[in-house]
């Protein structure tokens, strides 16, 4: 067992270290997301100020939703790995086929590292800022509140692990599609739209019109953001956490199987670029 896993761990940690080199870019990204979060909060709070009837979420839950969204933005599968795109374009992707590893698992490890490194760099300072610093400077109303309960925290951590898997499975579908489209520019755009809207990043999903809720509740992208953030704030009650986790897990497994199937076809008809 350990012999089978070791190569993937090595790949994960190597990618991770590479990505952690770009600290200036990380700082710029942090500042951008801080600003973005502040603007989103002021817009949503202004809407809430006019609300006369009870809403499916209260403002405190929305504040947590926005800050967690900014902290974990990099984990959302909204783009493809530029290194991977380059590999497909110049044909070096063929080397991956020669490795004595299961191709899908190898790529899964690589993609997981790509998805997880960015949020660690940006997420920790974002949480510290929004949870600790904001109350200190007297902006407690805008601060990220602690999780609703110890159980909610545990559920949140578990849902993040599943969300990372789901994000990787979705990104990998996009990566595999590169074998057909090569440039992947169109894919990137479509992914961004799908993911940002249906994960709840643009507007928290519970605030969408009621007639859309049945559809929103069954689509996979809510497992990326909506589910973890609402578990954190207690908007999803403790009793429903298990069911939600199972829901996301089933979607993840389905998308992994779909990815494997498409990859199998892709490798069979792949034309390697370059001479």
């Amino acid at each position, binding site marked *: 067992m350990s012999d089978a896993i070791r190569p993937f761990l090595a790949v994960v940690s190597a990618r991770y270290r590479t990505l952690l080199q770009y600290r200036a870019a990380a700082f710029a990204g942090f500042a951008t997301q801080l600003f973005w979060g502040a603007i989103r909060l*002021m817009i949503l709070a202004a809407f809430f100020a006019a*609300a006369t009837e009870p*809403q499916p979420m209260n403002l405190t839950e929305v504040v947590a939703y926005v800050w967690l969204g900014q902290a974990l933005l990099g984990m959302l599968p909204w783009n493809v790995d530029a290194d991977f795109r380059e590999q497909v374009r110049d044909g070096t992707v063929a080397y991956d086929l020669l490795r004595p590893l299961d191709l899908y698992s190898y790529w899964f490890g690589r993609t997981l590292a790509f998805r997880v490194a960015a949020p660690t760099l940006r997420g920790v300072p974002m949480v510290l800022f929004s949870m600790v610093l904001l109350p200190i400077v007297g902006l407690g109303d805008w601060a990220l509140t602690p999780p609703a309960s110890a159980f909610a925290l545990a559920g949140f951590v578990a849902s993040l692990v599943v969300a990372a898997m789901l994000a990787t499975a979705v990104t990998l579908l996009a990566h595999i599609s590169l074998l057909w489209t090569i440039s992947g520019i169109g894919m990137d755009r479509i992914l961004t*739209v799908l993911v940002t809207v249906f994960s709840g990043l643009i507007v928290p999903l519970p*605030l969408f*019109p009621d007639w859309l809720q049945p559809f929103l509740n069954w689509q996979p992208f809510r497992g990326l953001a909506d589910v973890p953030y609402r578990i954190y704030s207690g908007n999803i009650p403790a009793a429903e956490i298990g069911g939600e986790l199972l829901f996301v897990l089933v979607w993840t497994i389905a998308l992994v199987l779909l990815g494997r199937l498409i990859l199998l076809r892709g490798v069979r008809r792949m034309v390697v670029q370059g001479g």
Partner: protein
Amino acid sequence: MNSAALLVRYLAISLRGQLQYRASFLMAALGNLLNCVIELAGIWVLFDRFGNLSGWSFAEVAFFCGTVNATYAIGELLATGFDQFGTLYVKTGDFDRLLLRPRSTVLQLAGHELSLRRLGRLLPGLVIVIAAWAALDLPLQADRVGLLAFAMAGGVAFFFALMVLQATMCFWTTESLELMNILTYGGVETASYPLPIYHRLFRRFFTFVVPLACIGYFPIVAVLGVDDPLGTSRLFQVTAPLAGFAFLGVAIGVWQLGVRRYTSTGS
């Protein structure tokens, strides 16, 4: 050849180049269009849920949103050379070649590319403005239309200036940093909503430091013909877009300081 004719020739060459890659241009334009539509859809969702935004209607906010998107698209269309300056010119050392030519660097970079995919943001932006204009039943008077055009011209100068500043930073950092996205993309997001909903410090920043509200919120309040909850006078609202041109003047001054400091990376 005078500067204007040269700029037109630069841009014509760029257009012909892009039309060689129709599929890639269409795809990118479609992506921009989708982003704009989603932004509006996000606003609609919130209005559907909450009814109004401290007294502003959906059509009014859509008017803000459409105007700033169209304005930004034009600015970006003209400033692509500055947008990609770090990667294309500083990192490679290719800026040397621009300095050797007997024309200003600003002119040459403005002529770098007329990026057609920006139309994907411009067209929906304009459609939204026209639809909101009709939904609000605003009379089609020359002074309103003229003021909107003036505000948008100031806005184009403003966003062009932001791109110039972003490019200027590359003289120090070599690579373009994501930091300016706060003011460009973040500016579009901010200006899509009426200014009074923001915190006092944000309002001051976007009026006096980075005059985003002077090319967006203030003149549009006058175009809409409503009273500004912040209590500004009509005279101020009508003349505010001048700040966009002043901002461009400052940005070009800073750019020239940066050029003087430039040392080539080329070998």
